[in-house]
């Protein structure tokens, strides 16, 4: 059971929203990453049926998005828009929209209370939403999306406005939901947090899907950019001299503390074999070996670039 986009395009008149998107989004946390105007919100609005594709077909757990009665019993959507009905408390806000799901009164009361507790708003639930801070409004929107216990959660910039503590707790929630087998689809500009959240990423630029999948897999497909590997060891100069004999190593930079070596190579497998040999031959003491650019930020820079244009 996945979320499937089959050759989906959406145009706003002559303006491109997204074009020829083919995606299969499995359960877990999936991040949509891209610059402003890349099509993240369009993709989210398409999968929640708020806009219709110009062409192509979308199925969310085998349900077409133009059937809100079925779709939204399974789906929760936290939009980017900071809008609330006037005069309602946080609890009333959750309760009233839960009633739209057709659940009985007692069930709605319980679900509203649970959702408030889950986002740490139990005490503020009886205050007017209009009196909430930006972070509290963000949390109540999150509670609004999760209150009916959906299987698919679509969250547009859910970390905006949250303080660091709340961010960490929200990220923990996302991971928990992902591990429970739910589909959690998150858009975010904060790339290091996307790294912490995501099981897989979808990179978008100018309405096109530039890359998708687990970040390591995406990175390995970017073959025109040498892979960066950080080796922490006791004799980095020695290691650097041995590695420079190889043609696939294009750069080696010794850390200022003389205990680390940042390498750039076109062939990581050969580098690891060589590293083993050097250790065996010289008795080099290696503390750690870790990829330095297998993260969303690096992949984003390689594929999309600083200016938001596809590199």
């Amino acid at each position, binding site marked *: 059971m996945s979320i499937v986009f089959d050759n989906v395009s959406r145009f706003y008149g002559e303006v491109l929203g997204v074009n020829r998107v083919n995606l299969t989004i499995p359960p877990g946390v999936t991040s949509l990453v891209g610059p402003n105007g890349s099509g993240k919100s369009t993709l989210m609005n398409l999968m929640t049926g708020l806009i219709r594709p110009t062409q192509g077909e979308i199925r969310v757990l085998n349900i077409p998005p133009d059937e809100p009665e079925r779709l939204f019993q399974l789906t929760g959507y936290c939009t980017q828009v900071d809008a609330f009905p006037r005069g309602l408390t946080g609890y009333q806000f959750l309760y*009233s929209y839960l009633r739209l799901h057709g659940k009985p009164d007692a069930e709605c009361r319980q679900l509203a209370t649970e959702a408030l507790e889950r986002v740490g708003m139990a005490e503020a639930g009886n205050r007017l939403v209009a009196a909430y801070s930006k972070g509290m409004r963000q949390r109540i929107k999150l509670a609004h999306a999760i209150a009916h216990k959906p299987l698919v959660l679509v969250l547009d910039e859910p970390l905006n406005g949250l303080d660091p503590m709340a961010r960490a707790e929200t990220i923990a929630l996302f991971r928990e939901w992902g591990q429970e087998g739910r589909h959690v689809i998150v858009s975010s500009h904060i790339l290091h947090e996307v790294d912490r959240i995501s099981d897989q990423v979808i990179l978008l630029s100018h309405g096109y899907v530039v890359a998708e999948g687990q970040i390591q897999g995406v990175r390995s497909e970017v073959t025109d950019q040498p892979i960066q590997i950080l080796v922490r060891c006791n004799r980095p100069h020695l290691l650097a001299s041995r590695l420079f004999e190889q043609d696939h190593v294009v750069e080696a930079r010794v850390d200022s503390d003389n205990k680390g070596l940042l390498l750039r190579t076109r062939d990581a497998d050969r580098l690891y074999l060589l590293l083993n040999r050097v250790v065996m031959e010289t008795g080099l003491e290696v503390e750690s070996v870790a990829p330095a650019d297998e993260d969303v930020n690096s992949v984003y820079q390689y594929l999309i670039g600083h200016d938001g244009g596809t590199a």
Partner: protein
Amino acid sequence: MAVYKKTYQRYAGTLTPAWSRAFIIPRYAFEEMHRKRFLNMFFLASMLYPLVCAFLIYVNQNLNFLKLLPGAPTQGFLEVNSTFFMALLGVQSMMGFFMTAFVGPGLISPDLANNALPLYLSRPLNRKQYVLGKMLVLVTLLSVMTWIPGLLLWLLHGVLAGNGWMGQNLRVASGLFFGAWIWILVLSLLSLALSAWVKWKPAAGGLLFGVFFVAAGFGAAINGVLRTKWGNLINISHLVGSVWVSLFEEPMNRGAGAVFFRVAAGEEIPVWCCWATLIGICLVCLWLLAKKIRGAEVVRS
């Protein structure tokens, strides 16, 4: 933010039927209305005329009561017929019009102005149900002000008059009911369409007056200048009045839509034209709503 160790469980309880979703929407609209003293007062004031009518019907049928009043007629002084009920419908409809002008513009425009439609449409609720839910606010209010008191008065008089009066005047009851519903539908749809397109509430309310009164004046001007009667096609109260007359089976020169919906003699237009125009107005309103009620704002550049 507490994190509970829970495994995912979907809600497995019973759900209310999908068609009933729209009934959730008016809930808070009524609560908000109830907080406004002016609207409460106006609503109560709109019940005065039916109450006076109920009193008159009672007195008219109760000769013993009349005998207590010095100088009062010894026989019924009031003819309770279709003209009486058309007058009632006319007065109550006009009260309903003012109520709609106060309430209607605030139904959709705040949701659009705040970009809050996704809150509704990312629930098991489609656009039709959203519009229906908003319309229910006006339909409920206008029903309580028009056909419900009308039918209650019809029943009251029927019970007091006896002698098969109800059987002989079924046409009046159906005229009241369907006549009021035509007015309710036209008024609600117009009000919602204006609320969707004009985000500033006072302007939307003003425009509703304009659609009725300015258009009526313009229609009269057309009639005067061109020496025709077809200018009445843009006079909504004329259209509704003509349809009412046909529903009550009144002669056009007698009932003539009563009080606020009077059709001037010689300016009558065929009833089918009135029906067709009213249906056309409703369809245009639905089209306007369909254009504006969208889950996500589409900005073209």
